């Protein structure tokens, strides 16, 4: 049979979490099909058709899918499930919201946030905030899986899949979109940025958090935060890196004024190089950092900003 990947997109552009999920899907059951459900999202389907290894793109274009709410998406996926032996979604807030509903209705257990495909029925996934790795063997039958995208390489471009339009399923109408407040940023997306600079409670205020911006701009980095900084209201919730926030694995992760609770480490310890800047030399963050700089971040950050400028980073 085949596997089906639920595309991550905003009706305008396809997110690279999709490409990473395609990589995982191809290791479980080929060929791979991608479902693009949205409204006026033809361009997204065209982009998905170019992912290497994708055989077919299913395009469900209807107003009821504009926000990919869980209830209409459940009905749509159930209408398609018969044809697939695996259904996968990236472990984004969208994928996590939808897929357990599908699993429950199919009477199948879901495997959340896989890190590795050992064989088509055996997977590794993190438990206890990543402090243990569970190797799980699924029973025969359908696999319903969310994918920790930082653990898989993105499938490349160069595919030429067919795009097939499919009809919308009926919508119960018991849930509806009622508004949104999205963070606007010119910076790269937190989960796919090559460099991430995150701030913690040590920054002390929303105003001080802006010290990170100029450095992030010079390094083309995304800005993240610890739970403490989000709880304190310095930055919005979508900045949060950690067990229950976003998992990131950039080439460079800079933790500024973050002590390093296990819940935070869970979201960033797979980064290639970790830098910690903290005034407390006993902070646990230093135990995972490749380079530690002990000192007052209010002195270090301006110095870092200037040093980058003088080395030609703009």
């Amino acid at each position, binding site marked *: 049979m085949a596997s089906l990947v639920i595309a991550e997109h905003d009706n305008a552009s396809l997110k690279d979490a999709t490409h990473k999920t395609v990589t995982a899907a191809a290791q479980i059951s080929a060929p791979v099909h991608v479902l693009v459900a949205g409204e006026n999202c033809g361009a997204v389907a065209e982009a998905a058709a170019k992912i290497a290894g994708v055989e077919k793109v299913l395009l469900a274009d209807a107003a009821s899918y504009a926000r990919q709410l*869980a*209830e209409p998406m459940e009905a749509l996926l159930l209408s398609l499930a018969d044809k697939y032996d695996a259904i996968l979604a990236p472990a*984004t*807030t*969208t994928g*996590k*919201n*939808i897929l*357990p*509903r599908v*699993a*429950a209705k199919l009477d*199948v*257990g*879901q*495997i959340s*946030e896989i890190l590795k495909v050992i064989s088509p029925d055996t997977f590794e996934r993190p*438990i*206890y*905030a990543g*402090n*243990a*790795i*569970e*190797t*799980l*063997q*699924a*029973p025969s039958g359908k696999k319903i899986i969310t994918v920790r995208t930082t653990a898989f390489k993105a499938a490349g471009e160069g595919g030429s899949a067919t795009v097939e339009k499919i009809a919308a399923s009926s919508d*119960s109408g*018991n*849930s*509806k*979109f*009622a*508004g*949104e*407040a*999205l*963070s606007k940023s010119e910076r790269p997306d937190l989960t796919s940025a*090559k460099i991430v600079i995150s701030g913690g409670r040590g920054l002390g205020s929303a105003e001080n958090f802006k010290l990170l911006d100029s450095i992030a701009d010079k390094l083309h980095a995304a800005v993240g935060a610890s739970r403490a900084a*989000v*709880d304190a209201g310095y930055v919005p*919730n979508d900045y949060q890196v950690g067990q229950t926030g976003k998992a990131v694995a950039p080439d*460079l992760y800079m933790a500024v004024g973050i002590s390093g609770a*296990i819940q935070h480490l869970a979201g960033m310890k797979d980064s*290639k*190089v*970790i830098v910690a800047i903290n005034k407390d030399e006993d902070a646990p963050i230093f*135990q*995972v*950092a*490749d*380079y*530690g*700089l*002990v000192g007052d971040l209010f002195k270090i950050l301006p*110095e870092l900003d200037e*040093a*980058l400028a003088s080395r030609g980073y703009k």
Partner: protein
Amino acid sequence: MKVLVPVKRVIDYNVKVRVKADQSGVDLANVKMSMNPFDEIAVEEAVRLKEKGKASEVVIVSIGPQQASETIRTALAMGGDRGILVKTDQMVEPLAVAKILKAIVDAEQPGFVITGKQAIDDDANQVGQMLAALLGWPQGTFAHSLELADGSAKITREIDGGLQTVEVKLPAVMTTDLRLNEPRYASLPNIMKAKKKPIEEKSPADLGVDITPRFKVLKISEPPKRVGGVKVSGVPELLDKLKADGVI
């Protein structure tokens, strides 16, 4: 309106988890156990609904060993009215948990279910969504704020791009995120009062749910360890190192 709050007894969030040497699991002997933090937020939200006169009764349910009744007591001390313990010493997978909860919902007929978005032990993030699907109810997951009206709820959700508000018809399931509220500490008089509140005991079999695991856990292993690196003298040395590593 009755509100049902499923809670889970998990390893305390401050405990550093140790994997057993034989890779059969994590070491839970003599380890502090607590209510899953997201479920505490769920209890708090339900109790606040009752205090505002929007909920008539808050029913706490937990699935687990006898000690899970302590977790229920904690929730009763926070303001829950009564408890249901579905007693089992087995590991219960999320789908089976959802089926047990569905059986309880069928019997109790609550108008709203609030539970944590994930448990911090298995980090599955499945039960709320599965329960909603089995009931054919709508859901508001990862809740950041709630406005309850007559017959509907406006739930603002923490999503990857920011915040999203959905309006769901009741009955519905809501799962909590971190910023929904700050759970209270139970006062001593309330802890004493909670001891007298009823907890009914049932078994998964009483509810007609087969909890035989579907998955086989082959092993639980340590994640790759990161070794701490070096302290650098200042910004110039840091940038030299990062340049040499090719990451800037």
